[in-house]
């Protein structure tokens, strides 16, 4: 992965193009995923903002973590995140990704998402409504256009912080590169 993210006018054009067309990974990790179909289909129609579902991590730029994460899902999520290509963004859904939410004392779910993956933005709600999802994604588009959405760079820079936390919960994790 080349690390020289040069901040030039070319980068601004790419940021502008990135925010106009986002491929959201179709991976419903938690119970919040039930509010995604209404957002993607006719009533709230996310695709008019250029956000559409992508079938595989390779083609995706946006990783929606929809709700709580059991440790088993966290392992697969880390693999998925590392398969995705920069520039990539993570959006945390619902209170379960912020502070464990309803399952704060469950032995099998993680309590804070941003200890394991760089999170651009959280959408609050114990399953946020489609309007909240759209509002959040529009804010994300603005952040991308202004170049503030640099989660993937933060992940590169303090890679060992994230890897330590992941290994603390998951034990050994296979690394791709």
């Amino acid at each position, binding site marked *: 992965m080349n690390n020289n993210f040069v901040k030039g006018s070319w980068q601004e054009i790419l940021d502008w193009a990135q925010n106009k067309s986002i491929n959201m990974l179709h991976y419903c990790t938690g119970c919040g995923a*039930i509010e995604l179909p209404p957002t993607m289909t006719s009533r709230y129609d996310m695709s008019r903002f250029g956000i559409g579902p992508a079938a595989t991590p390779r083609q995706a730029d946006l990783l929606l973590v929809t709700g709580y994460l059991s440790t088993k899902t966290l392992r697969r999520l880390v693999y998925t995140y590392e398969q995705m290509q920069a520039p990539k963004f993570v959006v945390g859904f619902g209170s379960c990704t912020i502070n464990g939410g309803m399952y704060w004392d*469950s032995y099998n*779910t993680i309590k804070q998402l941003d200890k394991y993956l760089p999170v651009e933005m959280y959408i609050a709600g114990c399953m946020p409504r489609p309007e909240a999802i759209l509002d959040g994604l529009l804010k994300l588009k603005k952040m991308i256009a202004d170049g503030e959405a640099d989660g993937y760079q933060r992940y590169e820079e303090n890679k060992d912080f994230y890897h330590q936390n992941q290994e603390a919960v998951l034990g050994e994790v296979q690394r791709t590169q």
Partner: protein
Amino acid sequence: MDKNTQTEIFFGPNHPGVPGNYGINYQFEGDTVTSARANAGHLHRGFEKLMEERIWIKNTALVPRICVEEPDINEMVYAMGFEAIGEIEVPRRADYIRSIILELARIQGHIFSIGGNAAGIGQYTVMHWGTLTRDYLLDIFEEITGARVYHIYIRPGGVRQDIEAETFAKILDLMDELENERFPDLEKALFENPNAQKRWQGKAVITKEEAIEMGATGPVLRANGVPHDLRKMMPYAAYDDVEFEVPTGKNGDAWDRIKIARDDMLQSIKIIRQLINKIPDGPVQADLGNGLKYRIPKGDAYVKIESKRGEYGYYMVSDGSLKPYRVHVRGASTPLGLYGVREFLPGTRIADVPVWAKSLGICPPEFDR
């Protein structure tokens, strides 16, 4: 699995064709699945442990989050379990309102699964129409309970609040709209579509003996012509006051199950109309004293109701304290999701694996809990 002829596909937790966060690792040769294994556990949050840490009334907020497609089923079974152990009499009006909520949830669940099945075979238009129709039902739920999906409305002893008259009128209008406009569209686009019939006919066949042996109930059993429905066999809430038929199929394949889902919805509309016309007056909540100090005597009970996928049951044990001693959740698709994948998936084609998984209504949070 010999390496040279068979390869393995992780029809994994992250895949558009899989129903929810659940994986099927199958080996295939040519285009046919040879062996398969369920890769469950991705949605495990330890519900039963959490329920033992919370007092009775607090669990009503936790319980609907078990199965996301049909939250009201969990609330109902939890309330029925509490009332069964404590021998609590629920006012008749609350029974009627509970049945209305359950039937609305059934319609919402069935439309969503028909949309999901259609998306599995590439018919995205029906998915869009189905999810749009479901949203109208969520608006009704929002009007009654204040929330779209998790309603926390059915409580031990009754329901949280009454339904006003104009909400009943809205429900009746929606039922007419569903029956005269929405369903005929779906009928023409999907059920009269030769392609869809060809994609579903004869696929994912589960015979009567296999279903009973495995403990699978609901559309999987009724698709073989067996009219088993817990609303008829063990009537609960207000189902003994309404008449309705139990739709059945003939040869137990995906096509019959999806037609049963459609006929179930039509029956639910009939039930809701009868319930609204005959609803008695009276209180909607039995007087159980202060919610924070609910306490029922020592005892246990296994209660079950008919969810859209079949028998959904709780085994609840109370030791007389403020908290439940043990709650065991029996999801409707547990036998199919774990055992059925290993026994009945081999032999199907790769193109039919999503048809197999979605038409059998495998809902992973039920057996991951």
